[in-house]
């Protein structure tokens, strides 16, 4: 039965590890936590039951871009009864959708939207077949991507009548898993934990002295390794500059991809990569969420990642077809300063908080309606978007429990603690980079796992022969480069 549906709707003949178990568990009415590594088809775990159960599937998803990708995936399968409920919708669209919620099978929703009473009221009217929390590690303070909004999901779930629940994540340590179960207050869920290990991805770290050496090293690798691949950078500017450089070096079709590129071009670049028209994408972390490309052969990190968890997510985009793939991290002395700076930038500084308290003393009426002063606060205190989100979350809790503006002093402690967590995470990456024996084992240890399989071409300390990842130099890439416009137009429109 399940296989039949799988073939009919998704065109696959077999399940990937963990999918069948998760779906069977849900079909027998059990709450389920599934930890499946990136790139193994997590979304199928709610898509398929969605078609087998009566009622709607609500999917809580933390990232707008991710949500959009998932909606598009479903649309590509021909599903029309799908909607993404987030801040992208206009007021009218939101209103219309709210009144027609029962018309949708799959309802994606951001945690912010779940704070709106009217939304909850309308969701309550639905017959909910399945309540899904995607990226469930965001619930936990210990997760690398903690979202305070996620803490309220337990409450939301209760007000919706405790529907059948699926929590999905790719990377969760034991502590995180306990947090998920507790805050959702789901009792005795079935747990399906699959190894974060992706044995077909070889791990390599190159430590060099200077930034410039990294550039040389990168070019050296890209000349020989088999593509297509992604190179991740920490800034848009670097992604752009390096894309231009790599193009100049004749390394094939290269494009930059980041949040600063407009919607239409982003779409084109994504699709060009998917259809094999590009060899290399120079990306920021904005790229890759929900990209369903199976044959990515390498992922390079030009900058040091901020946590091992996000690193695994990003390298997990390689080798989804199960073929041998390569993950390279380039490290130059002192590189750890950048993630520390980025982490500091995400948090509110003590001075900023002091300044805000002073400002609120002068404008006490603002405390109870902080939202109205968004632009003012952001520009005057020099807040980033993340800063503002943190402030808003803290403020909400403070106001709800009747606290005044001086409670902001508590936020300083919160920030210090969060900075400690972030520093700790960066330190773990740093140690991993400088580790002298098996990198795979070290990662698995971090996720409280035992290594089960031995891998050849495991990682640089274990021994790895780069030749196995090289492209065949006699194979010249033959792209269909039609430049005659008539033939090109005919090819697109009328040729069969």
């Amino acid at each position, binding site marked *: 039965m399940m296989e039949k549906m799988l073939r009919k709707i998704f065109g696959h003949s077999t399940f990937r590890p963990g999918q069948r178990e998760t779906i069977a568990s849900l079909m027998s009415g059990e709450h389920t936590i599934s930890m499946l590594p990136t790139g193994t088809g997590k979304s199928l775990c709610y898509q398929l039951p969605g078609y087998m159960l009566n009622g709607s599937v609500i999917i809580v998803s933390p990232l707008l871009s991710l949500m959009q990708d998932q909606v598009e995936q479903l649309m590509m399968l021909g599903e029309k009864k799908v909607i993404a409920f987030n801040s992208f919708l206009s007021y009218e669209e939101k209103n219309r959708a709210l009144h027609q919620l029962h018309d949708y099978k799959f309802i994606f929703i951001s945690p912010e939207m779940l704070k709106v009473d009217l939304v909850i009221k309308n969701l309550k009217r639905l017959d909910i077949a399945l309540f899904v929390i995607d990226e469930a590690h965001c619930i936990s303070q210990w997760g690398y991507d903690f979202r305070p909004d996620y803490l309220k999901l337990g409450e939301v779930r209760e007000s919706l009548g405790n529907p059948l629940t699926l929590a999905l994540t790719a990377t969760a340590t034991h502590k995180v898993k306990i947090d998920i179960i507790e805050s959702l207050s789901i009792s005795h869920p079935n747990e399906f934990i699959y190894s974060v290990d992706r044995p077909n991805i070889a791990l390599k770290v190159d430590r060099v002295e200077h930034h410039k050496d990294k550039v040389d090293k990168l070019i050296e690798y890209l000349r020989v390794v088999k593509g297509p691949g992604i190179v991740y950078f920490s800034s848009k500017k670097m992604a752009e500059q390096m894309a231009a450089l790599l193009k100049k070096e004749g390394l094939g079709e290269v494009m930059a991809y980041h949040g600063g590129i407009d*919607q239409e071009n982003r779409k084109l670049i994504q699709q060009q990569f998917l259809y094999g028209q590009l060899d290399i994408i120079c990306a920021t972390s904005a790229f890759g969420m929900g990209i369903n490309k199976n044959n990515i052969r390498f992922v390079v990190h030009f900058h040091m990642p901020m946590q091992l968890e996000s690193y695994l997510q990003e390298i997990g985009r390689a080798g989804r077809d199960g073929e041998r793939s390569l993950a390279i991290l380039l490290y130059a002395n002192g590189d750890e300063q950048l993630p520390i700076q980025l982490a500091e930038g995400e948090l509110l500084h003590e001075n900023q908080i002091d300044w805000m308290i002073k400002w609120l003393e002068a404008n006490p009426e603002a405390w109870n309606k902080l939202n109205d002063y968004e632009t003012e606060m952001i520009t005057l205190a020099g807040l980033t978007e993340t800063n503002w989100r943190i402030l808003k979350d803290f403020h909400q809790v403070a106001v709800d429990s009747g606290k005044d503006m001086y409670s902001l002093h508590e936020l300083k402690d919160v920030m210090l603690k969060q900075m400690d967590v972030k520093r700790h995470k960066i330190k773990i990456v740093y140690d991993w980079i400088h580790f002298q024996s098996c990198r795979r084992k070290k990662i698995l240890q971090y996720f409280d796992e035992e290594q089960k399989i031995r891998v050849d071409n495991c990682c640089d300390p274990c021994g790895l022969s780069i030749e196995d990842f090289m492209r065949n130099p006699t194979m010249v890439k033959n792209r269909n480069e039609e430049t005659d416009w008539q033939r090109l137009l005919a090819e697109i429109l009328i040729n069969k």
Partner: protein
Amino acid sequence: MSLSYTEIVILHCLQRIEGQRTVYSVFHLLNGKKTSQTIQDAHLFHLSAFFHLFPSLTRKEFTDYIKRMENEQLIIQKEDLHFVVPKRDHWKAVDANILPKYVDGWRYHRYSRMLWERISLLVQVISHLNKQNQKYLPIQTKKELHVWLKKYLVQSKMSREDLAQGIYNELYTCLSHDDDINPVIFVIRLTGFNKIGLTASQAAEKLKMENDVYHIHFLNILHCILQKADESPEKFPLLNRLMTDVDKLTSLLTISASRTYRLIQKGFALDEISISRNLKRGTIEDHIVEIALNISDFKIDQYVSQLKQQLIVEASKKLTSKQLKHIRQSVPEADYFEIRLVLAKNGIR
């Protein structure tokens, strides 16, 4: 010094306005700023084809161009922010036809983007229909475009093969045998089955063109399609139908001016419109000037007596300057609104 295409365009515009406006009037023109001053200047100096040619040009980029050209003494500051282009023989090239044939910014600026969004989506969808493939991601994501497309497909009442062939034939006829068009500029941007179109910058790079030159030639093709489809609906029924739901006449006007126009057509007087729309008299006057500029059979007699019209036309012919105050000095009985309106109506520069 070698000039970029954008600089040549700026130089050309400055030459036309002869220092009678500030340089920023050129910036607003190229940006497509919809104020009555910009719109009127566009017509007055015969620059309406340049309207909205570079909507993403920033003020900073523009100022940098101006500074560079000033340093090279290609332009000279006459008074504060008013620049003139000294006449020199080798700049005659600047005065020649610097725009490709079909580019007409003022007439088409409102449709270019929409045409591209629609045609690129239509081609992609037809390509997949024709190859019987349903699993793909639409390159255009706006919901209203999808709604429009569905309607378009239903209304065409054609089989997928006929539709594909029809669009192919029309695009082929429209773009071929035309020396002012290089169709590959357009075609490599299209997305179809297993073939994703290039971005503008990729296309420019591939065709070894500067980005601004590529942009203008791409625009030229969009404007060409708009013009030909509009002129010969019998020859291009499918292309024509891409834009038929868009109101052509009033869309020559800004939205606010077209509202005013509708009230005028119903017989309301200037002051009545001002009261009923709760807008200042001056704003309605701007609208009327805009209407006179764009609607050729619009009569202005109810706003300016025929005698005054005659005086103003004569005065403007005698004076070399187009500055309103000079005309006003020689026809003191006319006010500024009347002068602007008469100049607009008669296309006097």
